[in-house]
């Protein structure tokens, strides 16, 4: 049962549910003991929001236009286990958007050098499957998924590859090197106010939403959501906050 008016009136007075400031992120926790069978994995909690991400490597053929580059494939499952609002069935628009925003943040920041995933030019490359599962949705799944994904990738190990076979569970000495750590920060706008890291109840009253992925202060991916538009100065203000939050969130990745 929602209290849309109440949440809006709180924000009008620069206050939020659970006593947060407008630009205050909830407590973020990262851990890595998710699955022994993943090549890399992470769990991210933002307040009561919780997601897990696992990375698995497979070998495939490269795309003809990039014969010496491996690739990443990001999927997201909004498990009905994690919210009464999620239904069973194939991934819907929300899950697809989520996966694509995470994908673009990693891809466009060039955090991972796809050339290093090449085994034999034009024939064999590594493909990193980054699979996201939601465990508890208390708002801002995007940021949790993006943070868990990059943390999982940073801790991933490449399996051994011998005689055209991937030896799952056995690892080569090659670690995945990330040149930078793209960090995703989602902001919301309600009337003229801007909030960071919207919670579940706040998400239902947002006029618009902006997700910004940055690395070292440069912007690599953005996604606007919500029903209403954003003004130029609101966008720049949101980007400023996202860049400021990048520093805090980056420190959490081990």
């Amino acid at each position: 049962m929602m209290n849309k008016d109440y949440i809006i009136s709180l924000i009008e007075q620069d206050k939020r549910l659970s006593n947060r400031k407008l630009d205050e992120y909830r407590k973020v926790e990262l851990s890595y003991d998710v699955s022994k069978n993943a090549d890399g994995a992470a769990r991210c909690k933002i307040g009561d929001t919780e997601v897990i991400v696992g990375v698995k490597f497979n070998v495939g053929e490269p795309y003809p236009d990039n014969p010496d580059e491996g690739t990443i494939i990001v999927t997201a499952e909004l498990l009905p286990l994690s919210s009464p609002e999620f239904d069973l069935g194939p991934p819907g628009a929300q899950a697809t958007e989520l996966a694509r925003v995470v994908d673009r943040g990693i891809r466009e920041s060039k955090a991972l050098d796809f050339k290093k995933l090449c085994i034999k030019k034009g024939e064999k490359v590594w493909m990193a499957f980054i699979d996201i599962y939601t465990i508890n949705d208390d708002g801002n799944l995007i940021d949790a998924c993006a943070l868990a994904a990059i943390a999982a990738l940073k801790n991933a190990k490449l399996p051994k590859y011998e005689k055209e076979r991937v030896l799952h569970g056995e690892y080569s000495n090659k670690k995945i090197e990330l040149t930078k750590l793209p960090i995703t920060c989602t902001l919301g706008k309600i009337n003229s106010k801007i909030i960071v890291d919207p919670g579940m109840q706040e998400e239902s009253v947002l006029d618009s939403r902006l997700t910004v992925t940055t690395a070292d202060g440069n912007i690599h991916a953005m996604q606007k959501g919500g029903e209403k538009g954003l003004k130029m100065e609101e966008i720049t203000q949101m980007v400023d906050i996202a860049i400021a939050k990048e520093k805090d969130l980056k420190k959490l990745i081990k």
Partner: protein
Amino acid sequence: MSKILMKEKSIVVPGEELAEGMDYLPGMGSFREGDKIFSSKLGLGLLDNKLIKVIPLTGTYMPRTDDQVIGRVSDISFGGWFVNLGGPYDANLSIREASEFIERGADLTTFYNFGDIIMAKVSKVIRNSIIDLSMKGPGLRKLKDGKIIEVTPSKVPRIIGKQGSMISLIKEKTNCKIFVGQNGLIWIKGEKVEDEVLATNAILKVDEESHNEGLTDRIKEFLKKGGKK
């Protein structure tokens, strides 16, 4: 020889044997099989004279006649409104049971519209799934301001406290008007937002920590410090 196998007010689990022999009777949350009585709920086992009861610790709202509840108007028909109480079954509120007189043929949305929040009383329950509401009674009305929070329905007695002690304490220290629906929805209205936030946090603290000892003292301390840890 009949005997009791549970300790008074101990936590019992479904299927746990609570008593043996025909001298005891199975009450709510328990059932008899042969000459034994077992729990059917995760809850607190109580013995009331010869009646064995298990008070559930969790679970969705089970409506009972005369419960005061808070609900949201989910649909409107010719004869009245459907009201969502948080459980699987919408309750019925007929025109005759509205808090004011409504003429036949009137546009019902002008009284209670979709999404409106109302305070009502359960007037009748059939098979746990057909629920009739009434808004005739002191204080029962449509809620226009304030906020609604959700707690575990089975924790409502703890939030109210013995003879209303817990909720009185919270009302007094936060200067808020509070109405606790038996279905786990609570209405809070204060003079200042800070007061409402404090009342909310105190209630959620009772909900979360109700199984710890010394709860009243901790809530007192929490309110005294203005909600700071």
